[in-house]
């Protein structure tokens, strides 16, 4: 079995109908970088714990050390997340935990299976400036200034902050960079909050259907080559949705995001499991010319951000187009300086 095939079978571990995980295709020291890059070390540990994977003792020890290191990082991240939630709560700012920290406590049977490398919090666009101020006052650091005074609340996907040991905290205004990020109905993201327990405290996150849409959008529009850990999230969320797919599809379609929903869901086929109804739907979905053009803005690394900025400009209203264009074409001198140091965001993607 190839390393890529083994990683895919690992990502499908425990899903209905998924093939068994084969033996390690290479020495564990050679596999661990790829396993970590795909955020699958927790799945390896889970597979060993339930007997699906039986590495030799030395390999097992190497895996145990890598998993423990990741779990220590996750515990630090959750501690920082609780501090951030406290800060926002004290400032009266409504928020939702996104992605890893929420998924870990909602989806797998054991949260130790899900590794994540940063924290993601969603706030309303109108609250993003005051959220940044509150978190910076509490000790967070913003590596780069916004592209313009109103850029964060009008155009940014998220603002990146660093806090306590340089852990990354992404404060989201929306769920995606580029044109689809502007199409998402951000108000709807605050409907029907679900609570997950962190250290005995209830923190608010999205309901499963919105997590599924977010996970699909992230897989479809995020990294050019998605992490298999994120693909696994998507397959697990699709399984939870089961036959209740119509509402999910209607939500995404209502935003104009049915195409990235389908594109993201199609990636789960690589895991080799029995497809759930919404995964089956994704393979029958026909992408129209408008979405094909929009999706090209996310393909390939070279020129990606320029293409996203251009495609974003097309979905904005006239007043926003002007401000967006000015912000991208004439960033503040300080920001140019930050970007030249490698600290700044790609245009139209993240701010700060």
């Amino acid at each position: 079995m190839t390393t890529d095939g083994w990683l895919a079978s690992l990502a499908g571990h425990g899903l209905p109908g998924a093939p068994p995980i084969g033996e390690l295709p290479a020495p564990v020291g050679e596999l661990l970088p790829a396993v970590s890059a795909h955020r699958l070390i927790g799945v390896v540990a889970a597979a060993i714990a339930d007997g699906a994977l039986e590495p030799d003792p030395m390999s097992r020890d190497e895996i145990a050390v890598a998993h423990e290191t990741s779990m220590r990082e996750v515990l630090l991240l959750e501690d920082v997340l609780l501090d951030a939630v406290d800060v926002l709560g004290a400032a009266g700012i409504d928020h939702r935990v996104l992605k890893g920290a929420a998924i870990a406590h909602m989806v797998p049977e054991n949260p130790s299976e899900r590794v994540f490398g940063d924290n993601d919090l969603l706030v309303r666009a109108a609250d993003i400036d005051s959220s940044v101020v509150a978190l910076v006052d509490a000790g967070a650091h913003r590596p780069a200034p916004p592209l313009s005074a109103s850029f964060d609340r009008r155009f940014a996907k998220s603002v990146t902050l660093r806090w306590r040991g340089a852990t990354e905290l992404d404060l989201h205004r929306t769920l995606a960079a580029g044109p689809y990020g502007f199409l998402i109905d951000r108000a709807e993201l605050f409907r029907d909050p679900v609570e997950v327990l962190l250290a005995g405290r209830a923190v608010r996150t999205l309901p499963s259907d919105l997590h599924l849409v977010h996970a699909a959008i992230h897989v479809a529009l995020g990294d050019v080559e998605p992490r298999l850990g994120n693909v696994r999230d998507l397959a697990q969320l699709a399984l939870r949705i089961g036959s209740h797919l119509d509402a999910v599809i209607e939500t995404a379609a209502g935003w104009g995001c049915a195409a990235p929903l389908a594109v993201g869901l199609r990636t789960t086929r690589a895991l080799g499991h029995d497809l759930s109804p919404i995964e089956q739907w994704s393979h029958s979905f026909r992408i129209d010319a408008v979405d094909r053009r929009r999706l090209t803005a996310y393909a390939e690394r070279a020129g990606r951000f320029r293409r996203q900025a251009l495609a974003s400009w097309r979905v904005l209203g006239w007043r926003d187009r002007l401000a967006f264009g000015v912000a991208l074409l004439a960033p503040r001198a300080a920001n140019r300086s930050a970007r030249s140091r490698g600290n700044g965001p790609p245009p139209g993607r993240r701010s700060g």
Partner: protein
Amino acid sequence: MISSSPIRRADVLWRDTLDAVLVRPPGGVEVVKLAGTGRALWAALEEPQRFTDLCADLGATHDAEVSVIAADLAPVVSDLIARGVLAGHDTSPHHDD
């Protein structure tokens, strides 16, 4: 001094690993690693247990004398309470009814 009815603190963050449990107490900068008996102790204390019952259970699991388990466990429980991992009221063993 040991707890009459120790229990996991609800306000800690924790994760299983392959060989241990990692616990991050509130406000702490240090992660406490519970391996071996500590891991078994953590598993047993999802619900509060009287110390004597806890020792009896672990004694049965590990096929050991309850008095030996109690002598080994008492300082561990006290230490984990002091480090913010477990909660419990410190009482003398003879109050442990």
